[in-house]
């Protein structure tokens, strides 16, 4: 079993606290994404698990074995680097064979395993090439094969998709997930891209300033952000500040009173997080109790959708997103047009300020 357990991990650099008392249990076979903006400590955590960076305080165990003070070479982890870090002076085959040579396997076994590992990522025919002769996506797959061929206890991936273009990123996302599921290998994946984290991970851990801000399944984190920060990070652009008055009533800072879900916290200062997709325009939806009049302030064409910035007479600003005519959406609105915007109370989530 290779449960990964981080116990109160702290990483202190001279003047700053990069990781501030993080504890995390990762189950055998789980794929966990560490998600957060740059500088939140996610990469530092990954590098501490790999042993590249010493831990200031706390303990790291894998399958009960304490690795906190072990050098990287003794940890049996597969690490995927953002720049792939394929040895430029070795062929693809030699790169993949490196970890097996370090384990002093017989030559015949190495050759067989290298072949299998490269075939698994569909690159069996490129074993003789040098890394620089491969495309970015192929290099990424070689890096994956090299990390996995040593049969590591844990696979650590540092922004594995950030250097690939959009199409390739999608393919690679699926490929990583497929390989991870078929091998059942415990995997920790660092990314700053919420879409990547949501679509690949079993569990998403959102980090901020060296601490865990929220964790849960992709749906939990996406649909029920528990803080202003997580809501914003999950792409909620409308965070309307105000005061919850109880009885599903919420008074916005600009004076309007809107309805919020029944389960919302009782009284206090909060923001309602409403996704721009949840805001309807001139819908006449009888369930949309939160209806306000506003003027289109700015329309931004984004291909599949058009974003409208709406402004009420009281100064409240709300972004609404509608499908563009290109995908059968309604005719675009012009700046200055008056509209009725509305959203269902259950589309809003109350988050602390």
């Amino acid at each position, binding site marked *: 079993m290779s449960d990964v357990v981080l116990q109160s991990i702290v990483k202190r650099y001279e003047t700053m606290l990069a990781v501030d008392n993080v504890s995390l249990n990762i189950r055998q076979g789980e794929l966990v994404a560490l998600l957060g903006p740059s500088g939140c400590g996610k990469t530092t955590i990954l590098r501490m698990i790999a042993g*590249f960076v010493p831990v200031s305080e706390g303990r790291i165990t894998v399958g009960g074995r304490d690795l906190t003070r072990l050098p990287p*070479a003794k940890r049996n982890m*597969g690490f995927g680097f953002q720049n792939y870090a394929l040895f430029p002076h070795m062929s693809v085959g030699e790169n993949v064979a*490196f970890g097996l040579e370090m384990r002093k396997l017989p030559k015949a076994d190495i050759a067989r395993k290298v072949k299998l590992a490269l075939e698994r990522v569909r690159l069996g025919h490129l074993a003789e090439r040098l890394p620089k002769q491969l495309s970015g996506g192929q290099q990424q797959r070689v890096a994956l094969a090299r990390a996995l061929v040593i049969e590591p206890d844990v696979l650590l991936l540092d922004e594995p998709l950030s250097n690939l273009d959009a199409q390739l990123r999608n393919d690679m996302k699926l490929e990583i997930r497929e390989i991870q599921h078929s091998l059942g290998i415990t995997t920790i994946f660092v990314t700053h891209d919420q879409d990547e984290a949501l679509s690949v991970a079993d569990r998403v851990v959102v980090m901020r300033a060296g601490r865990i801000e929220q964790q849960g399944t992709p749906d939990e984190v996406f649909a029920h952000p528990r803080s202003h920060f997580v809501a914003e990070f999950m792409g909620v652009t409308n965070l309307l500040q105000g005061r919850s008055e109880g009885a599903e009533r919420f008074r916005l800072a600009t004076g309007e009173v809107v309805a919020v879900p029944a389960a919302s916290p009782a009284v206090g200062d909060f923001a309602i997080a409403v996704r721009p997709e949840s805001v309807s325009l001139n819908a006449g939806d009888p369930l949309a109790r939160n209806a306000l009049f506003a003027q289109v302030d700015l329309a931004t064409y984004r291909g599949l959708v058009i974003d409208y910035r709406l402004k009420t007479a009281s100064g409240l600003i709300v972004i609404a997103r509608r499908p563009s005519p290109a995908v059968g959406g309604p005719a675009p609105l012009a700046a200055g047009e008056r509209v009725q915007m509305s959203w269902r109370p259950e589309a809003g989530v109350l988050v602390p300020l």
Partner: protein
Amino acid sequence: MGPIAVNRIYAALSALVLAFVVLPLVAIVWVSFFANKILSFPPTGYTLSWYARAWAQDAFRDGFITSVQTALCAVVISLALGVPASLALVRYRFPGRDAIQTLLLAPMIVPGIVGGAALFMAFIELEVLFDVEIAGTLPGLLVAHGLIALPWTVRLVTASLAGTNRSFEEAAASLGAGPLTVFFRVTLPLIKPALVAAALFSFVISFIDLEKSIFLVGPGRTTLQIALVSYLEWNLDSTVAAVAAVQILIIGALLLVSDRYARLARAF
């Protein structure tokens, strides 16, 4: 003044500086073909006889061989010390790191005469202390030349290491390689161009040294540069120019080769 005018002035200035550097070299090569018995101007005719005469001089031949041997040893010493030192300087943080870096580069800054005199006096002190001969010996000369070459190796190799992403070494470590294996299988191959450049540059720096060697050579063991100076004391003919021309050719070729491996300009 328009940008074109500025560019022209810049180009003219650059050409002037280049001429200032190159003209003496051209002149000495030219002079090496003069038929005049004594170094003088204008040439009375042209001849290759100075080259033959230079080769016939035992002092120059032996000096050349000593210089090449010394330079080869300087290469070995400066790489053996400079590469591990560079690795420590670039890859680790430790107290006194900046001081050590400055110290390693110091031989480049201290005037050669001063460094040579200092070494000579230090050697004499050591001779007195331990009752062994150092100052006029080959090992003494080799230590000095290793020292001359060391800063250049440290400069070139630290620049190359600093420009090499650590992730290659980390990848090797996480695949199970210990520190030594990482060094020999990954780090060294990655900085190979800098190693070649450092070796060639160390060779050249040692080969052309006069100031330090002059204090440290023993009887019957002079370097080529010292042989040249001694010759000039009593003779003033184009033999020296011929030797110089050959040296310019060799050193120029070495620098061109080393520049192909690592842009020297990038290390400074």
